[in-house]
């Protein structure tokens, strides 16, 4: 339970932010936090708190798998790359051929989530394929 004490503020923040299906499990000296954030801002706030307790994430004692629940299939999501276009690929993986591009800040439709990393999207121009989930954010 030592880690739950160390990261008490993080777990309290998760509760305050309304993270649903929140689970905190300690196993082999690692604290696994799972749940679904109600918004992208809530997820960011949670990560800020984590970064405050463990600066630069060096302790290797937390795995926090919290996704944003509003990003469900059917909704529009925004492409949040640094500045470049987002590759749309034939399959889920960077080894898959690029079949299209979505522009920076373009709104695309989330078709389905293949896994936590790769989501099937469709652009308004009708291009459909897999994109890296990290560069897709909920609309604010």
């Amino acid at each position, binding site marked *: 339970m030592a880690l739950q004490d160390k990261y008490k503020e993080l777990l309290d923040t998760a509760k305050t932010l309304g993270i649903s299906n929140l*689970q905190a*499990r300690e*196993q*082999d000296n*690692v604290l*696994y936090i799972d749940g679904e954030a109600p918004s992208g801002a809530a*997820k960011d706030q949670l*990560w800020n708190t984590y*970064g405050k307790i463990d600066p*630069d*994430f*060096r302790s*290797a*004692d937390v*795995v*926090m*798998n919290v*996704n944003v629940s509003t990003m469900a299939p059917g909704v529009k999501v925004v492409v949040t790359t640094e500045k470049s276009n987002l590759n749309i690929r034939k399959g889920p*993986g*960077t080894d898959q051929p690029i079949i299209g591009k979505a522009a920076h800040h373009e709104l695309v439709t989330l078709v389905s989530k293949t*896994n*936590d*990393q*790769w989501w099937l999207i469709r652009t308004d121009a009708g291009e459909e394929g897999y994109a*890296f*989930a*990290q560069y897709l954010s909920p609309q604010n």
Partner: protein
Amino acid sequence: MKKQLTILLIFFMPWMLISSCKESDSKIQSAVEATLKDNKDVNGASASVKDGVVTLTGECNDEMSKSAVDSSVRKIKGVKDVINNCTIVTPQPSPAPVVIAEDDPLTKGVTDATKDYPSVNATVQDGVITLTGDIKKTDLPKLMMSLHTLKPKKIENKLTIK
């Protein structure tokens, strides 16, 4: 006068004897409470006593501890009967163990996640992701958020932050 006193004494003596033998409810109550206090068979137990009949409430882990509490209370002097209203708690299912990704899908996931950070090297061994190389401070949370969704055992961050 003296005779009257003797009669009175004779009349009351048996009653005095009987009542001194009979344990008072409050005495039983404190004896029961002392028994329950350090009893591991029951949680949050309380007891009420009326005419030597003890009513128990509280939570027991199973039938065995419920009857164990019962018999330990029955042994207390003056207890005529025990009404055991202790409830049996159903144990909370212990949380499912954390599932760690196999190295193959994990390695593939890590390759994808680090693709846009060419100065980051990542290795995967028995579910542990080890990061070396360097990264911009602003990119670190983004990379971490992405790696944390891959169900690794843990992430050893040995990156130099620029």
